C-alpha cells in the first residue's frame, strides 16, 4: 500500500486529494475531494493523465488573424506538444463559429479540435 498526494485540477478550487494505491498500483481509495469529479480525476491522474488543450489557428478572411480553439475532450498529457504541431499546420477560412470542428480526430485520439470563438 502507498499513498499519493494530488491536487484536483478539475476545477479552480484545487482540493488536496490523497489516493491510496495497492501494490499493483490499483486505486484503493480517494479522500480529500469535495465532489465526485475529484474522485474520478484522482483515479485518472494515477492511471492515464489527460489535459484539455487550447491554442489558436490561423484564419483567413476575418477581422482577426487567429481564432481560438480547444480539444473537445481532454487529450493524453504526453501528446500535448505533438498535438500542438498538428494544430499549428491548420488554417481555416472565415466565417468560423463556436463549436466548428477545425481538425477532426487529432492524432487518432478520437478527439476533435473545435473553435471557441466566432471569426
Amino acid at each position, binding site marked *: 500500500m502507498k499513498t499519493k498526494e494530488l*491536487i*484536483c*485540477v*478539475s*476545477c*479552480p*478550487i*484545487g482540493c*488536496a486529494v490523497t489516493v491510496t494505491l495497492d501494490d499493483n498500483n490499483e486505486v484503493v481509495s480517494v479522500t480529500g475531494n469535495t465532489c465526485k469529479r475529484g474522485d474520478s480525476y484522482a483515479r485518472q491522474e494515477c492511471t492515464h493523465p489527460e*489535459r*484539455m*488543450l*487550447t*491554442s*489558436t489557428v*490561423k484564419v483567413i478572411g476575418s477581422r*482577426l*488573424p*487567429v481564432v*481560438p480553439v*480547444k480539444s473537445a475532450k481532454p487529450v493524453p*498529457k504526453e501528446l*500535448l*506538444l505533438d498535438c*500542438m504541431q498538428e494544430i*499549428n499546420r491548420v488554417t481555416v477560412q472565415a466565417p468560423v463559429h*463556436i463549436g466548428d470542428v477545425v481538425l477532426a480526430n487529432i492524432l487518432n485520439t478520437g478527439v476533435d479540435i473545435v473553435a*471557441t*470563438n*466566432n471569426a
Partner: protein
Amino acid sequence: MLQYDLVVVGGGPAGMAAALQAHEDGVEKILVLERADTLGGILEQCIHTGFGLHYFGEELSGPEYAARFSEALYKTNIDVKVDTMVLDISADNVVTAVNNFDGLLTVKAAAVVLAMGCRERPRGALSIAGSRASGIMTAGTAQKYVNIDGYMPGKTVVILGSGDIGLIMARRMTLEGAKVKAVCELMPYSGGLTRNIVQCLEDFGIPLRLSCTVIQTHGKERLEGVTVANVDEHLQPIPGTEEYIPCDTLMLSVGLIPENELSKSAGVALDPVTNGLVVDEYRETSKKGVFACGNVLQVHDLVDYVTEESKLAGAGAAKFIRGEKPAGGTVTTVGENGVRYVVPQRINRATDKDVKLYFRVGRVLENVTLTVTCGEETLISRKKRKMTPGEMEYVTLKASVLEKLPEDAKLVVSTKEA
C-alpha cells in the same frame, strides 16, 4: 441628451451579467457602453478552459463563456455601443462618452453600474534596474499578442510574479515552442491558483522560484537577459545569490489594480485595501443609484463569481429604479487577524436574501477556524484546512440572522489557530 433607466459602463462579463439581470427584473431602457470593439472584456484573450464550472457546470474557454452572455444580450432590447469610451460620470449621473459614430455622447441615467474591470500593474510600479529594452511587457499584454494578434513576442522567457495570468502564459508560450526558463515569485508562496501551478508549470517542468525576484534587466535595444536574486524575509535581495538568466522576454504578472479613475470622478468611496469600491449587499456604492461589480470592485480569480456578483448589482439597480429602499439601518463588515478585506463592506439588516461575505486572507493559513462574530456573539464558525491569498473565499450569512443584529453592528470576519 439621451435618457436611460440604466447605463452599464464596461461590457465584460460583469457588465453583461448586470445588464441581463436588470433586464430580467423589468428595467426597460438599458445601455451598455464598451470601449473595445466587442463585448466580452478580458475573457476574449483568455482562450484557456476552466471558466464556468460553477456557473454552467461546464468547462468553457473565456470567449465561449463571454459568448453565452453576449448572445443572450443581443437577443434582448438592451442597447449596446462598442468602440465607445466613457470619459466621465457626473455627480447627478450624467455619463459622458465618446466614439467615432456619435462623437461626444451624454446620457442621463437613473442608475449606473460600474463594470470597468481592472488592469495590470505595469513595470513602472516595480523598481528594476536596467534600460527600457523591448521584450519587457505585462503577461496580459503578451496574452493579447499571442491569442488575439497571433504572434509570438519572444523565444526565451522569464516570468516575474506567479499570478494566474503569468502561469497561464508560461504554458501558452511553452506550447507555442518558446522556452520558459523560470517563474520568479517575490513571496514565499504563489499568488496563483493551485490548479494553474500544477497544469501550467509542473506539467512542463517549468521551475517556480519562490522568494526570488528580478533585480536587473540587461540589453539596450532588445532584452538579452535578467539578473535574479533570492530575497530575505523583508523581501530584500540577498547579496551573493544573484544569477544571470539569458532571455529575450520578461513578462510581469505582479498583480491587478481595479480601474477606478471614473469612479473617483463620480465621487464614489474607495476601499483602501482592495483599491476597489465600498458597497452593500446589492453592490450599491457610497453613492445612491451607482452600483459596481466584477474586477472594478474586487479582483476576482473566478469569472463565475464575477457573474454571481454582477447579477446582484443588476438586481440592485432594478430595485433602485423601482424605488424600493431597504429600511432598518445597516451593519458594517471588517476583516481581522489574517483576513485582509471583506466585500460587501456594508449590509442592510432588512435585506431579503442570504448574504455571501467574500474575503481574502493576507497569507497562507492552515488548520484555522474561520469565524464571523458580532460583539461577543459568534454567528458562524468553520474549520478551514487551508486558505491562500490567491483564492477568494466566502461564508454565507443568513438573512434571518442579519435581521436580528443590532443596528450599526460591526461584523468581524476573523481566523483563529485551531
